[in-house]
């Protein structure tokens, strides 16, 4: 259902990813901002108190050393500074009182009632009219007197609100960055999927089988996905190509015998002689049999080559199988006065499909007997080395010339010297294809005029 519109699926996935990333990014940036603000404001607050503390200690020393007059002189020296100082005696009198200009609504009475010198420590006074905050320190002196001093927080609060403003404005770029980052991340994360989709799209809609997803060295998981996907495409392509080849080959290879069949029938139909008719029918039968065998063999070769052949591999002793094949050809060999020599160990196990292996051996034997002249000999050797079993069928035939060696395994290839022999030219390609399907390989050694040795190597 959603495959019909893969882009929509991709979009919704990518949208989710972007949103998640942006939300996460914005929230964490805000958290950092808030934390930074708290730290800065508490630092400023501490800073203010430290200044007050420093000043009050200085005033205390002046008072203790030089008395009330000196303190008063010191306090009123600079009238413009906004700070508050009060000296309170044990009777509640205030011999020194400096009320800053900012305290327009706060008179000495208010101060007397509200800023009580009851104990040492800090008091925060907030001006109800303009919201200005003052930090006030009370310091107990000897004989019940107390010294009080306060600074305004105003300047610092202006700074803090400035910081707050900057932080608030920074939310806009943060959201923007979060979104852009989300888009970037989503793009990176989903790009392999998008590439998969694009590739699939061109395969499904344009029937292109040779497209592959470009590999990138970004992420192990993605690489794995892409390389698996490409491998799957490779396999499909091999199969499709294989089938196309099979069709082409079958069509091509069948045309010749079909033409013969048709021609024979055509000539026969124009003939009056019943003996000729009979001959023609016999030819037709023989030709159709050849077509049937050729079709079967071609299918086998193609299936084996493309990996479509079903194999039931099992551990098999090839010795009895070779004996069987030798038995099958013994009369033919006798007829041609060919002697068959066998040199085999008692046991020789391979992992193979029994029926297919039999086909391989019979074809090798068939080939050897066919191309060995009268009075010649065929030799069968088998041996195991490591995890490999080699079976060699050697003949004393005409041999194969150097430039033909590479072609003899090809489908329908028949050497110049073998054209007169009856055969389809499919035997060796079938051998090679089946052995290949078993993950083995074939080999041929030949001396023109002296004979050839065909070997198949199979895994044990």
């Amino acid at each position, binding site marked *: 259902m959603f495959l019909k519109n893969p882009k929509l699926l991709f979009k919704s996935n990518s949208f989710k990813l972007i949103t998640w990333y942006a939300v996460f990014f914005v929230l964490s940036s805000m958290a950092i901002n808030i934390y930074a603000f708290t730290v800065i404001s508490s630092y400023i607050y501490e800073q203010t108190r430290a200044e007050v503390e420093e000043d009050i200690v200085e005033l205390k020393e002046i008072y203790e050393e030089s008395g009330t007059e000196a303190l008063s002189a010191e306090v009123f020296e600079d009238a413009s500074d906004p700070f508050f100082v009060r000296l309170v005696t044990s009777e509640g009198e205030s011999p020194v009182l400096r009320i800053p200009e900012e305290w327009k609504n706060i008179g000495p009475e208010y101060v007397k009632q509200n800023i009580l010198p009851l104990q040492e420590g800090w008091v925060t006074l907030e001006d109800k009219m303009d919201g200005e905050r003052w930090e006030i320190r009370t310091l107990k002196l000897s004989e019940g007197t107390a010294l009080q001093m306060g600074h305004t927080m105003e300047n610092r609060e202006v700074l803090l609100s400035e910081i707050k403003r900057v932080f608030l404005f920074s939310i806009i770029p943060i959201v923007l960055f979060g979104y852009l980052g989300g888009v970037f991340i989503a793009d990176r994360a989903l790009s392999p999927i998008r590439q998969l989709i694009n590739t699939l799209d061109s395969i499904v809609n344009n029937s292109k089988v040779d497209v592959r997803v470009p590999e990138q060295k970004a992420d192990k998981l993605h690489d794995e996905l892409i390389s698996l996907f490409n491998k799957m495409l490779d396999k499909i392509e091999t199969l499709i190509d294989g089938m196309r080849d099979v069709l082409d080959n079958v069509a091509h290879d069948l045309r010749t015998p079909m033409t013969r069949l048709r021609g024979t029938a055509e000539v026969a139909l124009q003939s009056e002689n019943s003996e000729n008719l009979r001959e023609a*029918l*016999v*030819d*037709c*039968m*023989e030709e*159709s*049999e050849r077509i*049937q*065998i050729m079709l*079967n*063999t071609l*299918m086998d070769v193609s299936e084996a080559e493309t990996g479509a052949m*079903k194999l039931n591999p099992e551990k098999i002793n090839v010795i009895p199988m070779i004996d*069987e094949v030798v*038995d*099958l*050809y013994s*009369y*033919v060999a006798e*007829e041609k006065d060919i002697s068959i020599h066998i040199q085999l160990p008692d046991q020789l196990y391979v992992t193979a499909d029994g*029926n297919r292996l*039999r*086909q391989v051996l*019979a074809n090798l034997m*068939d080939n050897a*007997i*066919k191309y060995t002249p009268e009075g010649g000999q065929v030799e069968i050797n088998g041996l195991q080395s490591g995890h490999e079993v080699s079976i060699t069928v050697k003949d004393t035939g005409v041999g194969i010339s150097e430039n033909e060696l590479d072609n003899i395994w090809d489908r329908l290839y028949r050497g110049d010297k073998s054209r007169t022999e*009856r*055969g*389809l030219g499919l*035997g060796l390609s079938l051998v090679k294809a089946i052995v290949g399907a078993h993950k083995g390989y074939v080999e041929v050694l030949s001396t023109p005029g002296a004979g050839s040795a065909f070997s198949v190597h199979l895994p044990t």
Partner: protein
Amino acid sequence: MRILVIEDDSKIASFISNGLKQAGFAVDVAYDGEDGLSLGLTEPYDAAVIDIMLPKLDGLSVIEELRSNNINTPVIILSAKRSVDDRVKGLETGGDDYLTKPFSFSELLARIYALMRRSSGAAESTKLKAGRLSMDLLNREVIRDDKKINLQPREFALLEYLMRNADRVLSKTLIMEHVYDYNFDPQTNVVDVLVCRLRNKVDKDFEDKMIHTIRGVGYVLKES
């Protein structure tokens, strides 16, 4: 003897039914699976030839249905598929033999005879006779006109097969299968050579030839 043929291709159906009629059988032909099944369920047959790919109901289902109704008529399956798996599947479903298209009629006929002989359960005779040729299966002795003929094992097996099917044409494929137990199309004339050797021993010294070649079809042993 009555045989049911279920085959949708009318040309193949008629060449099978004509051939069987000529061989002396009564033949009923059905062109699709449903008709074939209803015939098979109602009429008694000695054998059936059933194609796998059929309209309405496929051949394997027909066989399954017949077997589940306890009808054990021997069945030969016809199929265009030649893989081992298909063959095994056909035989597991209840088919008794499997023949791949294209096939020769003589081969079909030989297989029908073999099936009917098997299902009739007649005791295997230990002596075979064809004209003046006789074969003792226990002593593995062959005698023609009181003259003993020495045969090697494969030659003996071929002669036995020909005598059991006297007057019937046997294809090279059938001979390969029976004498060598080999399912293979050799490019060398293995069967021709074997027949030639047998002929040298059985016919050469006698006036009447018994083993005949039907070119393009196969070989036949004629009783007279």
